[in-house]
């Protein structure tokens, strides 16, 4: 919760302090809220309504209040109701930001979670295999691929697969990602591209962690007890290795849930990342602000879930 407050405060402060420090007037900011060519009435109403001439802390207080109890925007001609959690109202699309985020969230969830399942299974199993077969040709090949993998950004692998797999060789149908709902497996290409990058990272992490864990005393004890090697590796070794990896996993999934920006842009998928990106392109500040805050919220939530899972996976946490 503290983390969330800090992040929202920082985002808010920067959005409003930076333009001011650079000499942008509150008229300009109001204009950005309104859209490209607002009339004078709208502009004045927005300025008054949002209190752009108020000190930044007061503005921030109003923003937080809107999230907790909702808000009503008076544009001069009519009143727009924005129920809690109100993250602002976009005068450019005439939609509340919360509404837009709720619209876009499902597809981003599908991208992030589908890819996460793939990369955890692939990354961790490759990492464990590499660690157990250290120095063999399997290990070397896997680590060579993994090093290449962490050097391949999604916007390269994604475009490459679109150009060849979809367009040239036509192995997969060309998908219009805007109506993805009917068949989630249309997302197979984004999943693979995103998962490949992360699987490479996780394979390296798992291998390093596993090598370290298998040298620990408790592994020797487990072996000395005469436990079968499979039990030693999976119940004792892997569990301890997974704890630090879960921390990273929480951060990564949280980040992606808030918008898989690069993947969405590469494949033109209308998710949360695309929403934020459009907000930036069109200077639609309420949308950008809401999207950033949502992203921060998901990171905090994902970390919370990981903290709870710690106890399940690692007995050392449960007993302390």
């Amino acid at each position, binding site marked *: 919760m503290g*983390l969330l407050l*800090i*992040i929202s405060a920082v*985002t808010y402060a920067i*959005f409003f302090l*930076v*333009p001011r420090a*650079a*000499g942008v007037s509150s008229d300009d900011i109001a204009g*950005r809220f309104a859209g490209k060519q607002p009339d004078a009435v709208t502009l004045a109403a927005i300025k008054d309504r949002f209190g752009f001439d108020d000190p930044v802390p007061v503005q921030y207080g109003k923003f937080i209040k809107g999230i907790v109890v909702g808000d009503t925007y008076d544009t001069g001609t009519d009143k727009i109701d924005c129920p809690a959690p109100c993250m602002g109202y976009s005068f450019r699309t005439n939609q509340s930001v919360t509404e837009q985020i709720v619209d876009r969230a499902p597809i981003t969830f599908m991208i992030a979670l589908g890819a996460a399942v793939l990369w955890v299974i692939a990354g961790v199993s490759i990492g464990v295999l590499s660690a157990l077969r250290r*120095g063999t040709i399997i290990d*070397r090949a896997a*680590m*060579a691929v*993994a*090093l*290449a993998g*962490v*050097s*391949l*950004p999604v*916007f*390269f692998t994604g*475009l*490459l697969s*679109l*150009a*060849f797999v979809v*367009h040239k060789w036509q192995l997969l149908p060309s998908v219009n990602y805007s109506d993805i709902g009917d068949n989630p497996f249309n997302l197979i290409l984004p999943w693979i591209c995103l998962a490949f990058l992360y699987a490479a990272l996780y394979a390296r992490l798992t*291998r*390093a962690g596993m*090598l*370290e864990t298998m*040298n620990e005393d408790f592994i020797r004890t487990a072996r000395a007890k005469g436990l079968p090697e499979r039990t030693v590796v999976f119940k004792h070794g892997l569990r301890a290795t997974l704890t630090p990896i879960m921390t990273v996993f929480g*951060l990564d999934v*949280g*980040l992606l849930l*808030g*918008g898989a*920006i*690069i993947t969405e*842009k*590469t494949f*033109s998928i209308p998710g949360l990342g695309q929403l*934020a*990106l459009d*907000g*930036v*392109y069109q*200077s639609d*500040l309420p949308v*950008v*602000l809401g*999207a*950033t805050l949502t*992203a*921060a919220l998901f*990171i*905090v939530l994902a*970390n919370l879930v990981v903290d709870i899972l710690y106890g399940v996976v690692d007995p050392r946490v449960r007993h302390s």
Partner: protein
Amino acid sequence: MTAPIEVSGSEAEAQPDAVLAGMERKAIQGRSLGQIAWLRLKRDKVALSGGAFVLLLIFLSLPGVTGLVAGWLGSPPNDFHQNLIDPTLGGPLEPLGGISAEHIFGLEPINGRDLFSRVLYGARVSLLIGVLATMVSVVIGTVMGITAGYFGGWVDTLIARTMDVFLAFPLVLFAISLVGVIPRDLFGLTGNNLRIAILVFIIGFFNWPYIGRIIRGQTMSLREREFVDAARSMGARNSTILFKEILPNLVAPVLVYATLLIPTNILFEAALSFLGVGINPPDPSWGGMLSQATELYSVAPHFVIVPGLAIFVTVLAFNLFGDGLRDALDPRAR
């Protein structure tokens, strides 16, 4: 990765080095840690080839050299060659993306600009931002890491918490929105110079915790070592211990992680340019070219491959060299 990257010091693969270094120390005179590291690095051919590629790239990015090489092997990055482009589809007329003796990496679709010189000029921007942003991160990260690790207590708690917040920040989202609100001229800088300054600041300022965490951990363990106790018992002040005892021991990890942070930052810059908030056209950047390629990959697949491979090879070279450097400077490090 063929080199043993996760080998502990007592393990078999690291031993020949240690034995070798020990024997040579007797045969010749003493060897400094740097000399021993260099001996190890020299034997790691993969890391060396990565380093060689990085050096070549740096040389090609020097002012004066870029233009000369681009003029010699290609044509100026903003010269149009629309006579070589298919006017209906937009792709190059010749097969293989219009690769020829004049245009060794082929032609950009639509305008027909020379891809070789655009990739070359793009390298310059990528390297500049990658290296400068890393410097920013290293300075902030080292100062914060040492302070937290050495003084401990509430200072440590504060800095460690701050690092957690930074690491949990939706960075790409934040970067694109910040670039979005920044005006056209600031601090006397305009155009792409301002863009580069902002990108360096954002990337550098938000990546310092990666270095900071490592330095903090190292400082914490160095603080307990005997030589620090010895210095303190001789009455050395905190500043003396920090600068004369601890800092010199941190040079190796800082060097290693700075080398490994540069490729991350290059990828970050490419991603931001890809999202349209990096370097502005017509100046070439790798990410910017891929951004254009999202519309053109069907008529000109080479327009994806050429800048993409440039990113891949550069990042890989830095990673290979960084991994090798880590193994050479500290064989026990993971």
